[in-house]
């Protein structure tokens, strides 16, 4: 072949290059990238979830053959006083905790959004409760509420805020619930504060300047500018927090073990007690999956709301 000659006819691709050429197409490259993630999700999420569903509908007991029993576990749970109490506890615990985290988180975010000295250090410090392992920090709280060494009571008594010997934090129903809610709020507050702060920072200053020009005071600016602009962020934060709080385990397990008289049990702690400690895997799985349909509904409603806000 002479130098400079032109080849005529169809281009036949070299076999070795074919795969690389295929990967140039989004049609092939996309699935190739997504497949490992899908496999991971299947292995780590879908498979355990299906197993849990199967267990929940069986009379599975550790190490023994099991049989399918339909929804009998879910129905039978209502006969248990501990389960009925747990059901009620879960809503009280989640409702109170999420509401407090929302109000306090918003307040904290508004404060952090102000001009502060040592702004970065303070913002970093706010995250501390969220960074420390929950079991460890809850042990600290357990010590603070401990009947023998309670720092909370010691401080209350020293300041004259309590009558001796002070509240029996972990031994009385309502105090125990107050204690677990307090720790959950302390732990979850940074998540709310930092996420809301991110939302606050992204609100255009012009909107505030326009509102101010129209004569809106701080409260009116909050109601008519800040809150509407934050709605999608708040919806997402509340959604995640509701799910996490419903499925909380560490705080109750370390602080009260579900007591006194089951008054602080949550689905996760009761599921452990029934499923692992007593060997009734079927009933344990049913307890942990009980609220799955409700939570799915919450997720669906929240996401729909968020989409409406964004688009």
């Amino acid at each position, binding site marked *: 072949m002479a130098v400079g000659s032109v080849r005529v006819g169809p281009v036949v691709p070299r076999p070795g290059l074919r795969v690389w050429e295929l990967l140039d197409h989004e049609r092939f490259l996309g699935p190739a990238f997504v497949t490992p993630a899908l496999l991971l999700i299947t292995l780590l999420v879908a498979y355990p979830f299906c197993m849990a569903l199967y267990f929940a509908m069986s009379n599975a*007991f*550790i*190490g*023994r053959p099991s049989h399918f029993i339909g929804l009998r576990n879910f129905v*039978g749970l209502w*006969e*248990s*006083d*501990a389960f009925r109490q747990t059901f009620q506890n879960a809503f009280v615990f989640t409702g109170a905790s999420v509401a407090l985290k929302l109000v306090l988180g918003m307040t904290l975010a508004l404060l952090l959004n102000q001009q502060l000295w040592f702004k970065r250090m303070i913002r970093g410090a706010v995250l501390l409760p969220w960074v420390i392992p929950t079991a460890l920090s809850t042990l600290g709280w357990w010590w603070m509420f401990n*009947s*023998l060494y309670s720092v909370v009571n010691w401080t209350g008594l020293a300041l004259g805020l309590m009558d001796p*010997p002070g509240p*029996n*934090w*972990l*031994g*009385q129903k309502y105090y*125990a619930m107050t204690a677990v809610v307090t720790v959950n709020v302390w732990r979850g507050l940074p998540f709310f504060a930092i996420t809301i702060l991110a939302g606050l920072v992204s609100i255009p200053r012009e909107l505030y300047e326009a509102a101010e020009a129209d004569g809106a005071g701080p409260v009116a600016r909050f109601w008519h500018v800040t809150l509407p602009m934050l709605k999608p962020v708040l919806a997402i934060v509340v959604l995640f927090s509701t799910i996490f709080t419903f499925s909380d385990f560490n705080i109750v397990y370390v602080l*009260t*073990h*579900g*007591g*006194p*008289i*089951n008054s602080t049990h949550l689905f996760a702690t009761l599921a*452990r*007690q*029934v*499923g*692992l*400690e*007593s*060997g*009734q*895997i079927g009933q344990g799985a049913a307890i942990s999956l009980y609220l799955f349909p409700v939570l799915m509904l919450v997720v669906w409603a929240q996401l729909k709301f968020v989409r409406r806000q964004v688009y």
Partner: protein
Amino acid sequence: MSDLSRRQFLGRAAAGTAGLAGILAAKTPPAVAQQREISYLCWNNFAPASDKKLAEIGQRFAKDTGIKIKIDHIAHPQQAAKYASEVQSQAGHDLIEMRMHFPWLYETQLVEVSDLVAELEKKYGKALSSAQETANVRGVWRAVPQYHTFFVGSYREDLFKKAGLKVPDTWEDLYTVGKELKKMGHPVGIPISQNYDTISTAGPVLWSLGGMEIDRDGKTVRISSPATEQMIEWYKKMFRDCMEPEVLSWTDASNNDTLNAGKAGWIHNPISAYIVARNRKMVTADGINHHRSLAGPHGRHETDVPRHIGIWKFSKNVEPAKEWIRYLLAKKDVYDEYIMSGDAFNLPVYASLLDHPVLKTDPKFAALKQEGVQFHAYGWPAPPSDKVQRITNEFILPNMIAKAVTGTPTKEAIAWAEKEMKRIISG
């Protein structure tokens, strides 16, 4: 590696891969790797010196028998979850330390060890009643009794002497001295909360009054009885006159803490509080002493925490595992050495070893002579079962008492417990 050409490297890697595939397919390691090794999972003993001794004995075992042993420890609240996962996955340790009812719970998963227990009983006498109740499942030994830990009265002897109080012998005596102790600012410390120490006191009180939760058929709920009413009335007056409300929130460690902190004047517990106080040279150590657990009109019954060693059926090393049990328990000098290391917290469970030399290592261990005490597992006289286990784990007895002492009428609290127990038994 610099001498290895790319071709040689690829060749060796291929050979290695093929070899590994062969081993995996055959499920048998090559001869060079066939060193016998067993793994043993046990709890973090409350007498840590005995865990150290166990490790030391394990090293000697490896030297003497050529079988390597890997001993892992786990906190006791994690045991149930860990065992459940090993059984579900049919993989894990060869040997496991079994507490209380575990041999019943995992009956189908445990190797029969009746031959080993027969050898030990021939040597040391019959295993104690609590070991029989918990490790002998329907006539078959599913675990080998290792040692037990039982509850005694731990009291501040110095305070008793100062106030001229008589050491109690019955639960009623305890009420009498308890009133005085509370007046002195040193209340009685018996937990009434969702923990196992609560059951360890409530059971003996109920049994000594002639009561029970479930009958010996394991099916008939017997909690509603005059004996239970008496027990609850006793708890009510103890709670009111001898104790502090803080007992409603206690964990398994709280009674020890309060005795060692110098607050409580009397607690019902194994001797761990004293051992901790003595070893850490706490100021309360000298004042603490022990007496036998208390009696009632129907005798002196005692809750016991028997511990056994079981072998999983899925283990591929059953024979070496049995060799370890023989080495630790059947070699008298090794077993003695092991028991001595536990500061009388772990006591032998065989009849002829009850007056063990460990009891003479400290005059305050004298109350641990086990004469006249009837040892039982939770739920006695019902045989252990998954249902009794569930009644225990749902803390029905503690919650019944907690309800009653916080204002629920006695009969109502008992009716609640009866309903809950019937639900579990019929489920």
